[in-house]
């Protein structure tokens, strides 16, 4: 048990140390992005990596979370830190009918259906002006004051956001680890391997997939709420674009499908490279995302983390054999 918890504790400590060690606001900003994308990659990975259901529509869940958070704050005065989980819940609720509908389809047909649903959600956001403010979207001009441990939180500093993002990413990874050990996790793997055979041994495949999608949606929606909270700006292109869905896919695939650590590795790798290029021109990171995606599928289909883990187990086994001999 302690052996399993050790890497988590080390990771949490490392995350806690970052704000003390890193001075530059830009570096902290990159860390925040990495953590947000880790959560998003992990959300997508629950469904795409474990259950093998490739969704091209996760941006809609992220967007629902972002809109919920920002609308609750601007229209009803609900502070964003309450709005974030509310966004997650809203996304999970939206995911239920979507899942019941789309999970009647298999393989690429499921992927295309999620794409269509996501485009529909974007259309609604663009046109339902009374609620979403249409293409203009929403802007938060000032965040509500908050006192914690006797200090007022400074919203101009990046540190509070860093803490929230770190908690979000850790929670998403921990959820993945727990799911993997739970019965549902085993069911998802069975569904990925052979859906008919899974039904034949008594697995309610639709229920398992819908539940997982709801969990995935909750994480994605909460991350969307965080986006609204941190960037203070939400419009259809920013939170509902197809490229956003694709980025989640890429992070999970590049990191390693169906692994716990994969989304973290994918997010670190793609976000840092992406931000370095984005400096030069706005959507340059997407060129590299596309390129890495192609390279990984061609040469490293198990992803960076997947390959690293296999190499590590290989070395361990060799060492054991040497030790025994």
């Amino acid at each position: 048990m302690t052996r399993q918890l050790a890497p988590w504790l080390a990771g949490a400590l490392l995350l806690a140390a970052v704000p003390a060690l890193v001075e530059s606001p830009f570096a902290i900003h990159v860390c925040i992005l990495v953590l947000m994308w880790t959560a998003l990659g992990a959300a997508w990975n629950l469904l795409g990596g474990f259950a093998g259901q490739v969704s091209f529509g996760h941006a809609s869940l992220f967007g629902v979370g972002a809109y919920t958070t920002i609308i609750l704050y601007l229209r009803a005065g609900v502070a964003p830190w309450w709005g974030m989980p509310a966004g997650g819940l809203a996304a999970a609720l939206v995911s239920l009918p979507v899942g019941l509908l789309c999970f009647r389809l298999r393989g690429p047909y499921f992927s295309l259906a999620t794409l269509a649903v996501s485009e529909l959600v974007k259309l609604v956001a663009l046109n339902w002006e009374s609620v979403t403010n249409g293409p203009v979207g929403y802007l938060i001009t000032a965040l509500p004051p908050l006192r914690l441990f006797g200090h007022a939180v400074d919203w101009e500093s990046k540190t509070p956001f860093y803490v929230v993002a770190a908690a979000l990413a850790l929670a998403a990874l921990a959820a993945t680890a727990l799911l993997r050990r739970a019965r549902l996790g085993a069911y998802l793997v069975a569904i990925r391997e052979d859906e008919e055979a899974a039904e034949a041994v008594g697995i309610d495949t639709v229920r398992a997939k819908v539940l997982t999608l709801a969990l995935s949606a909750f994480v994605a929606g909460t991350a969307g709420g965080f986006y609204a909270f941190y960037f203070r700006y939400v419009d259809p292109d920013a939170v509902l674009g197809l490229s956003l869905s694709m980025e989640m896919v890429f992070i999970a695939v590049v990191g390693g499908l169906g692994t716990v650590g994969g989304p973290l590795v994918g997010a670190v790798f793609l976000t840092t490279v992406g931000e370095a290029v984005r400096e030069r021109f706005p959507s340059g990171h997407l060129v590299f995302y596309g390129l890495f995606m192609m390279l990984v599928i061609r040469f490293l289909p198990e992803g960076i983390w997947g390959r690293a883990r296999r190499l590590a187990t290989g070395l361990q086994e060799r060492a054991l054999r040497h030790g025994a001999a």
Partner: protein
Amino acid sequence: MEIFAQSVTSGVLTGVLYAMIGIGLTVVFGVMRIINLAHGEMVMLGMFGAFWGQALWHLDPFVSLLLWAPLMFVAGTLLYRLLLRKILPGGELNTLLYTAGLSLLVANLALFLWSGDYRTISLSYGASPLRVLGVSVSVPLALAFGLALALTAGLWLFLARTDLGRAIRATSQNGEAALLMGIDVEKVAVITFGMGTALAGAAGVLLAPSLYLYPTVGELLIVKCFVVVVLGGLGSVPGAIAGGVLLGVVESLGAVYVSSAYKDGIGFVLFLLVLLYRPAGLFGVGK
């Protein structure tokens, strides 16, 4: 009544162009089981080909078809031989993800090279619309329609009458049997992919004078294209033609009688309904 005739006409005109894009996607799926998510980018490249042909060499977009269609064919065969062929054994989902990567790469390279500005192609003969039987028709769209019809008819003849065309149809119906019958499936695959790419590029060239062009236009087109091929049944050429015209007409009627804002949504709803209730397509010819 006049409005109705007008919108049906423009719906049919655009629909045939949708159909042309859809045919490219659907033949590639039929033969190789590839759902090419980068298909929209092929259309985008055709559009920009037409644009730069006019801007740099004063080439009429419709004349430049003679240049770009063969070039896109070659590009397609190279793409298949050098990149896609090695991915195919990894399964349908891997191929889907791979072409998703390709799509992002091409679109954003184009964005880098040509910026995200919206551009238009203006033609001397495009200013005043033609009036036929009380319905006004834009000249470039009518020209594009005519050429698209001709190309589609040519493709049809090729598939129906030539040995290679028959080989393609046979492979599409049953790849293993085609292999056993001594059809060079690999050659069929290369040619089909080249053809699909050329059709997409040609459709782009033809559409360029009638649409705004920008590097990420492929995103919009690919989704429409899926609607078209799913309506007609994935893998079916006649289905894609019918699906294209249907989508064109439904969109243009929907814009007039339902809501112009949700015009694109009508297609998606149709798409979901067909996927769920008639997965073989509205005409039951797909697979």
